[in-house]
């Protein structure tokens, strides 16, 4: 009995060590993905060609996708909720100077757009999910605000008599999370709050600002 417990302990320790820092089998080396977790063993004799490199990275990505099944949620979000896309800055390609990149390239413009869009997409995901909002009663924002309708972000800040002070959009988001949604109030810089602000503003693209409007 004592022996078997000891054996189990030793085995667990060995496995844990393997997962953390795998000892490569003789004649191979370990290649790690940039997530610092996913690894493959590559033979020391493998030819150092581009094809071989591609094979290794494909294998790593296949493993990563298996452990991250929701990695394509953005695609689902785009199809389901048709989030409005951010401004197109292609006119700047090849001109001027970007503070980060020197010259603005097509890739620069794509990065700007994709990163901004991804924030709004994440906002849409939270907005449409009672679970993401931590709702105790399975209520989400879209139930009263399909496609963020009637959220009128262009009218904030404005004096909100029910709150007794000037409200920013995020104050109203939090009010709705706390009361109709019965979820957990978010910090002003919570990634979910930032993303929801991005989504609500995205859906109202092109509307003139009119702060204080009732």
């Amino acid at each position, binding site marked *: 009995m004592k022996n078997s417990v000891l054996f189990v302990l030793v085995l667990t320790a060995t496995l844990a060590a393997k997962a953390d820092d795998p000892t490569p089998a003789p004649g191979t080396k370990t290649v790690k993905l940039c997530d610092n977790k996913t690894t493959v063993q590559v033979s020391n004799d493998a030819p150092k060609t581009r094809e071989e490199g591609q094979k290794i990275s494909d294998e790593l990505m296949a493993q990563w996708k298996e452990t991250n099944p929701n990695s394509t949620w953005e695609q689902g979000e785009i199809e389901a909720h048709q989030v409005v896309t951010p401004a197109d800055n292609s006119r700047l390609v090849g001109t001027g100077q970007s503070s980060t990149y020197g010259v603005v390239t097509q890739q620069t413009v794509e990065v700007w757009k994709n990163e901004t869009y991804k924030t709004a997409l994440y906002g849409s995901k939270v907005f449409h999910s009672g679970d993401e909002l931590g709702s105790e009663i399975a209520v989400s924002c879209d139930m*009263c605000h399909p496609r963020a309708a009637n959220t009128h972000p262009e009218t904030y800040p404005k004096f909100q008599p029910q709150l007794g002070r000037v409200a920013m959009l995020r104050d109203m988001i939090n009010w709705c999370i706390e009361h109709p949604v019965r979820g957990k109030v978010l910090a002003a810089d919570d990634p979910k709050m930032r993303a929801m602000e991005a989504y609500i503003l995205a859906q109202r693209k092109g509307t003139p600002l009119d702060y204080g409007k009732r």
Partner: protein
Amino acid sequence: MSKIPHIKSVETRYLEERARLFQGLQSLDRRSFLKVSTGAAAAALAAGAANHFHSFLPVNVAYAAEGAALPGFSFAYISDSHLYIKKTNERFVRQLLRAVDDVNKLDPQPDFVFFGGDLAQLGRKEELDLGAQILRNIKAPVHMMVGEHDWFYDMGHHWNELFGPENYSFDHKGVHFVVLMSVHEKDFWTARGMDAAERMHTVAGLDNAMQSAFEVGGPTREWLKKDLDKVSKSTPLIVFSHSPLYKLYRPWNFWTDDAEDVQALLKPFDRVTVLHGHTHQVLANSIGNIQFQGMLSTAWPWPYAPQGMPALTVQMNRPNPFDSNDGLGDGQLTVHPDGMVDMLYNLWNRNPMQVKASYLSSGGKNDKPVMPTLASY
């Protein structure tokens, strides 16, 4: 067999007149009643029947003068309760109970209560059972309609078990009523490999573009055609559909894809009123001989669509997010002797709003309801 002439005694005629009067009074508000009585008095005088003025005869004269044979009546509605199971969300349960109290308190009682669909939120058996259990407390008879939230988990199986077929018709006091399943969708789930819960969840998202457009569909239109073939074109028609039977705004399925085909079937009738759920707001429209009225929800209000609003719609004020029952409610409908249908929106915590048939039939000139001060953004 030869027809035996039936001679009624003075007492029988008196009691019949009396019964008709009280029936008439039940379906009229005080203003209409005064109009009827004055008109009736004039008609009675003209006919040299002044000595009968103390009797109940004038009301019958008034009906006869308008050329209608209907007694007129009222019914109430409750719609779109979107129940989860009690443990998940007790707020929607309380709100439906409030509506049940409302209709039970009506005096006189409505002839029946109509439920406008979306009893459940995610179409589960437990949700529908809970809804059925609550609606059993309604004193008046209840007529049920199905909504997409009741349907797309088991494709109507449990709803049908509880409430019977989703398409049916009945006659009540000279009006032909049709209840129509208008929220069929083309198969979007098989190709995407969705299971029943995912299919239901997709349809449950009003703004989820993965789903198809609502439609009555060929088989149901065929059923409707057969049903209406039996009905005289002068009979007033009241049609219940969950989605509006016209095209308002496709991204939220405020829409019926084959609306024109359904309207064509209703066109030959003199007077048609369509009552629909799904839109959770005060909403009215008029297309040819068809008048449309939307029903309020007891769960949550929807904003008005950013495009495609019918010109005749009078918007309710923007719901106040600080009042969890604002923009919600139930309502009553008065069916007048000539088949015109007036809608009274019983908005909780607000003044009621009435949208009259005469407002719609006059193209918005007469009986204009109170306009909102806080319109949609």
